[in-house]
């Protein structure tokens, strides 16, 4: 590409990218303002950044919501790995009969709209006293993410050379030995990709959280939408809370960009 058109396209590209990134940047800027600066007319562009809003958010009633999000995401992700890895093994290394049917069963449940099972799940959670209990969210997020996990882990398992398993089997290795000595060390990128994708979906999840929790087990998105009414509109505080809430997934996604595409496409695009 000649240097002139390279410059032109670079400028075009950066304008487009910055347009998309701007709301995120603006969120950060607002979070560093004082409350009057954040809700001023005209908007404030030059100001002395302050972390006082963050201090206020983190010392207020926000942390329990954050902890609930962490519990729901981390525990459900671990459950996906524990249940998903053996299932992926049974669909890749020593495949069961009708492997394809099982794969399509899993993926069809991922894309069944939540409307299909919401009401019975709600009634069940009510009868089991699981409403406003973080366990309900853990179980639901595990259900949402398990089909993705099975597909994704399977795509990584298929990349392990079959000879390794042959050799292990000749030595009389057990299933547990195969999992812990061969599979886990070799597909650590796969485990990372799966964890990342589960973390994104469960951390950001709102629909079940808003309907199945109220106060004790409420997660960070519930805290955020509280700004719509209850707490009144404090822009700087809202922006600071939104920044902190988005940080774990943003960081994880940025660090593991390569795993992101593979995860989002269930292993189809590498």
């Amino acid at each position: 590409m000649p240097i002139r058109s390279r410059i032109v396209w670079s400028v075009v590209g950066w304008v487009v990218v910055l347009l998309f990134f701007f709301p995120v940047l603006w969120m950060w800027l607002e979070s560093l303002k004082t409350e009057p600066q954040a809700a001023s007319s005209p908007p404030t562009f030059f100001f002395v950044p302050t972390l006082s809003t963050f201090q206020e958010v983190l010392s207020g009633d926000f942390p329990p919501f954050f902890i609930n999000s962490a519990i729901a995401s981390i525990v459900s992700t671990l459950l996906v790995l524990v249940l998903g890895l053996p299932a992926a093994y049974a669909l890749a290394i020593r495949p069961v009969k009708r492997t394809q049917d099982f794969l399509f069963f899993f993926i069809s449940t991922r894309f069944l709209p939540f409307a299909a099972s919401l009401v019975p799940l709600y009634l069940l959670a009510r009868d089991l006293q699981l409403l406003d209990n973080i366990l309900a969210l853990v179980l639901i997020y595990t259900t949402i993410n398990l089909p993705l996990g099975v597909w994704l882990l399977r795509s990584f398992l298929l990349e392990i050379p079959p000879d390794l398993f042959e050799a292990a089997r000749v030595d009389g290795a057990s299933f547990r030995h195969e999992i812990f000595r061969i599979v886990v060390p070799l597909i650590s990128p796969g485990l990372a990709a799966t964890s990342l994708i589960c973390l994104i979906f469960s951390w950001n999840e709102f629909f079940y959280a808003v309907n199945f929790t109220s106060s004790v087990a409420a997660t960070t998105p519930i805290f955020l939408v509280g700004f719509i009414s209850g707490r009144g509109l404090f822009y700087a505080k809202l922006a600071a809370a939104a920044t902190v809430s988005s940080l774990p997934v943003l960081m994880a996604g940025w660090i593991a960009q390569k795993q992101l595409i593979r995860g989002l496409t269930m292993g189809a695009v590498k």
Partner: protein
Amino acid sequence: MNIPGSSILRSVAGSGGARDSAASISRREAWARRLPLLPAFIYVFLVTQIPFVLTIYYSFFSWNLLKPGSFRFSGLDNYSGLITDESTRIAVWNTVLLTVSVIAISVILGTGVAMLLNSEVFGKGLMRTLMIAPFLIMPTAGALIWKHTLLNPLYGLLPWLLTPFGLGRIDFVGQAPMVTVVTVEVWRWTPFMMLIILAGLQSQNPEVLEAARVDGANAFQAFRRITLPLVRPFIELGALLGSLFVVQTFDSIYVLTAGGPGEDTTNIPYRLYIVAFQGFSIGQASAIGVVAVIVTIIVATFALRTLFTIFQVEARR
């Protein structure tokens, strides 16, 4: 089912079959193989299939949670209620409108950005990093930032920027609610499309394009005849996965418009939320659930097929 975009998924599901043939194995061995699969299978089956059957069952009953003892068989009343109820028609229409426009626009924008990032621009890595941020940001957080700090008629940045153009302080959420929802969703899904399409572009052999250029093809011809056919499966995959997510949009509607004004932005998930959790009409909500499943299948097949007929016609020209 022959859904566009499923070809890549099917090739993934089909691969590896020959690795260790499952054809001639003993029954004992078959069960030994099945054992690791069972916990995940049973778990997913219990939590998704049984509730779905119950949803269908409840949809034939009239039942309001707030009225004890109101549980009674009502046949197809819930469904005939849905058909005559204008709210349902509005919700179905809004769901289709939202899904089709968000997917179409974000595919087009995503293709454009992916092509920019695939060319020799300066700072590609950083551009890509910044570009995926909207997809990673918590959807409720993103929607709140849009609504209150960017679009608020009094303090928002955008109405202030547009004041010199004589547009006054536009109230985007109030005056163009659907456009606002679509904009925020496009902002979120364009990076998703970009990532998948960029992966497709990067799998392209640059020498083929070079050869086409040597043969006198201009940039547009090269794109239509060489690049587009190659990335089409990736576009289809992105659109398929994206539409299955967008059809369930709830967060941004809840935050931006609460389904309003009136029912102008109420889609099926939001309607279900209102009926189930504001009205506590279990039977009616279940009927909506069944309709949602049907609409999801229709959106995933027909709307996408239409979209890709356009692509195919384009590619053939």
